[in-house]
C-alpha cells in the first residue's frame, strides 16, 4: 500500500467537501460539507502518522474530532438563532456584512 493512495483519497473527499460548501444554500448542509472536509483531513492525518511511524497523527485527528464536535454544536446553535430571527436558514440571504 502506498501513502499516495490514501492521501489522494483524502484530497478527493476534501474537494467534494469544498464543492458542497460552495454550492449549498442551506446552512445546515454547508456545515455538513464542512464535516466532510474534516473527515478527509482525519484520514490524511492517520495515514501520514502511519507513514512516519509517529503517534502524533492519530492524536491530532482526535483533537480535530473534538474541535469538529464543538464546531457543529456552536454552528448549529447559530443557525438556529438565525432561523429564529429570520425564518430562513439560507446563507445567501445573510449579507449583513455587506458594505
Amino acid at each position: 500500500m502506498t501513502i499516495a493512495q490514501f492521501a489522494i483519497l483524502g484530497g478527493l473527499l476534501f474537494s467534494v467537501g469544498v464543492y458542497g460548501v460552495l454550492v449549498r444554500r442551506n446552512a445546515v448542509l454547508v456545515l455538513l460539507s464542512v464535516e466532510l472536509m474534516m473527515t478527509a483531513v482525519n484520514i490524511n492525518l492517520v495515514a501520514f502518522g502511519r507513514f512516519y511511524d509517529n503517534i502524533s497523527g492519530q492524536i491530532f485527528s482526535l483533537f480535530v474530532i473534538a474541535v469538529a464536535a464543538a464546531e457543529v454544536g456552536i454552528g448549529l446553535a447559530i443557525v438556529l438563532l438565525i432561523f429564529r430571527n429570520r425564518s430562513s436558514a439560507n446563507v445567501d440571504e445573510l449579507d449583513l456584512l455587506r458594505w
Partner: protein
Amino acid sequence: MDFSLAGNWVFLVLAVVITAAAMYTVSTRNVVHAALALVTTMATAAAIVIMLGGEFVGWVIVLVYIGAVVVLFLFGIMITRAQVGKATALDHEGNVRVMAAVVAGLMFAAITYGIVELFGDAQLPEEGVVRTVDIADSMFGRFVIPFEAVSFVLLAALIGGIVLARRDEER
C-alpha cells in the same frame, strides 16, 4: 496500485463507497438523505482509518460522528423545518455549481499533483497498529496541555451553545 495485495482490494472498495457517499451528500436534494449519506461516509472513513492501524481513532469516529454529530445534524434539520423530502432551493443556480465544481476540481488536481510529486510510490510501513495504551500515554503525557485546552474549547462550546440556542422565556 499493486492488486496482488488483498489490502488494496479492500481499499478500492472502501474508496469507491466513500466517494459515492460523499458525492451523494453534497448533491442530493433531500436533506435527510444528505445526513444519512454522511453517516455512510463516516462509517467508511472509520473503516479506512482502522485499516491504517488507527483502531482507537476509528471507533472514536464512529462514536462521535455517527453517534453524536449526525444526530445533532438531524435535530438541526428538524428544527429549522427544512423540507423533509425533496427540496428545490437547497442549492445555488447552475453557474454557481459549475464554478464550485471547477474550484473543487482544481483543488483536487493540485492536491493530487502535489502528492504524486512528493511521495510517488513510497510504501507504507508494514507494521502499523497503534495500541490505545500508546495513545493514552501520549495524550496524557506530551499532549496534556493541548488536551486541557481542548476540554476548555468543548466547555466553551457547551456554554455557548446553550446561551445561543436558549429561548429567553421572560421576554
